[in-house]
């Protein structure tokens, strides 16, 4: 099977042979750091461009088509514009928190990238509690949003931040329970183990109805958690102008913007890992010949293909649905999604105990 494992292993061995172990580790940190920042920027550019094109298709428009072929450099031009803009701090704002908030949000997004397996053997940190780590760290971003809303000294921002807080805290429960149901099936919290357990088929197919229910709940919950429409109450353009980032301009705004897109990528990557086998090719039980053919497609293509399919799904939501109201949003979570996902978890446990999955 085509794999990036060779590259990472060779680099690791060479570094350890050439330098002392400490220096080798430090160099690896450096490489990974540069890669993450690079990935962050590239993801931002690609996803913003993708969103523009997807929305254009849905809105019978052409989308960006002037800067570069098909307008692919449009996002680059926009980033340049944002970099050159003045970063304003409003009067009466808490300067320290105001300036800190975008970094909290962005660094959180960066940290979650650590345990995600991008391809076979291409994972920064194969921690044995990977799923728990992701759930834990992703909750921190709400602090950044609350900070931004509070420090802006703006009522719209404050309202947006409050909504965002209520929303993220609520929907994390459903997302967590949906994730747990897959953990029950695979019997491990480690991302690489979860992927390995899908060797003979993805969980969405193997796990019967409970897995499909879990997937639907997961997608709804993460859409809410990333503050995307139809759950974009924290921004709610027509109500709160721009919600928690009303007062931000220039690069500080760009960091929020970038973090939003990277968060979408992350939740979709997690979804792809849990339900669609991450980088694992499409395998059907014991069909060896078919499985071997599927193995010829590189694992990174499988991973990014699945992730971008889910991202497309979330973008499709955004450009089709109207926004919910705050009480409807909380009703949906506490009255419907949470009971369903709890029941689903029980069902999944039952299925797992009886061994009714493939």
């Amino acid at each position: 099977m085509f794999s990036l494992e060779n590259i990472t292993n060779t680099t690791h061995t060479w570094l350890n042979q050439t330098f002392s172990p400490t220096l080798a580790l430090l160099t690896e940190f450096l490489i990974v750091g540069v890669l993450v920042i690079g990935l962050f920027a590239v993801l931002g550019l690609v996803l913003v461009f993708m969103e523009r094109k997807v929305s254009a298709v849905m809105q019978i428009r052409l989308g960006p088509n002037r800067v570069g072929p098909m307008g692919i450099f449009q996002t680059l031009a926009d980033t340049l514009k944002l970099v050159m803009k003045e970063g304003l701090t409003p009067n009466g704002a808490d300067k320290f928190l105001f300036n800190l908030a975008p970094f909290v949000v962005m660094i959180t997004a960066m940290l979650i990238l650590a345990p995600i397996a991008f391809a076979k053997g291409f994972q920064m940190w194969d921690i044995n509690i990977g799923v728990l780590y992701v759930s834990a760290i992703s909750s921190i971003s709400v602090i950044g949003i609350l900070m931004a809303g509070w420090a802006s000294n703006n009522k719209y921002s404050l309202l947006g931040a409050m909504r965002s807080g209520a929303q993220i805290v609520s929907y994390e429960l459903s997302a967590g329970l949906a994730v747990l149901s897959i953990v029950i099936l695979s019997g491990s919290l480690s991302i690489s183990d979860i992927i390995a357990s899908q060797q003979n088929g993805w969980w969405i197919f193997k796990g019967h109805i409970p897995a499909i229910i879990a997937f639907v709940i997961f997608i709804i919950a993460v859409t809410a958690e990333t503050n995307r429409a139809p759950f974009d109450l924290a921004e709610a353009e027509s109500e709160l102008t721009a919600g928690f980032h009303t007062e931000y301009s220039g690069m500080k705004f760009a960091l929020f913007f970038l973090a939003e897109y990277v968060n979408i990528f992350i939740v979709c990557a997690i979804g792809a890992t849990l339900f669609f086998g991450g980088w694992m090719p499409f395998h059907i039980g014991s069909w060896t010949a078919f499985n071997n053919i599927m193995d010829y497609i590189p694992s990174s293509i499988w991973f990014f293909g699945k992730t971008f399919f889910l991202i497309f799904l979330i973008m499709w939501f955004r450009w089709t649905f109207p926004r919910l109201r705050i009480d409807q949003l909380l009703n949906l979570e506490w009255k419907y999604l949470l009971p369903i996902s709890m029941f689903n978890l029980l069902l999944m446990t039952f299925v797992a105990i009886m061994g009714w999955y493939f």
Partner: protein
Amino acid sequence: MIEEVATTAEGDLVINIGPQHPSTHGVLHLVVTLKGETIRKVEPHLGYIHRSIEKMCESLTYRQFIYVTSRMDYLSAHINNHGCAMCVEKGLQLEVPARAQVIRVLMDELTRIASHELWWGALSMDLGAFTPFFHAFRERETINDIMEETCGARLTMNYMVPGGVMYDLHPDFQRRVKEFLKLYKLKIGEYDDLITGNVIFQNRMKSVGILSKEDAISYGCSGPVARGSGVSCDIRKLYPYEVYDKVSFDEVLETNGDSFSRYLVRLREMNQSIRIVEQLIDNIPEGEFQAKTKAVLKLPKGEFYTRVETARGELGIYIVSEGGTTPYRIKFRSPGFSNLSALDHMVRGSKIGDLVATMGTLDLVIPDIDR
């Protein structure tokens, strides 16, 4: 100073929505008192786009002042002009040729469709769905193209003159309108698929912003807002002008009085307008498009009042003449002003998201309110 107005004695939050805000559709300024997310009070502040059109009209001749009225309710410019032209004709006791009457009604109904299309897109945008806006504009553009061809303008047409219309129809007019009718019937289903049937949309609209029949009457609401509450108030039916008594169409009434009723009224009104256009487009009589008038119009001494049904409701035009070439006083009764006054009553106790949704169903055009 700022601290004083920022919060009330009970500790409620006071926020300013507008005059620059994406969902006020213009320069409307709402001072909203909030308890958390719940609305305690809404106070509209007007005057940001007041151009004193009524005063300006006093120094313009009876031919000239009609053009200024295009700038009031710019989405139903034709209908504004139509009302003013009718008022002047009433004073002059001028008979409008049959062809001009049909052309006027055709243009009015096309304007109404275009206005409702824009409202539909803007309402969806208020609710956070961006895509419908572009779908609405696809059809609206066709109407604008038709208008441009005949009237020479896309928004402020200035096509109606006392005694008829300014020019004859463009030779392509009938063909283009028929093409539009075909396109509209093809696409109107998409509106329901995309928005009307959507669960989120229905939850946002149903039993929200309720205006009872009694309140609708006492606030002086008119147009689709009042008809959504079950008040029969279509001027085209009650006091028919031009050829409205010769075409068959229904007055759309809904009785729930919530935002969804108002939504349905406008959506069905579009279909009724299509019905009127369909009946008239093949039956435009031949003949003059403008009655013979004197170069300088002078209204006899007296008071003249006409009313027309614009896309937003009843527009009244009141002219006081002293016998000169310019009106002595002019007063417009704009539908948006009365409709806006009911907003506070409708949204008290609901969430801030409902305020935006309810305001969307009122279909406010701010230059119409301020004038």
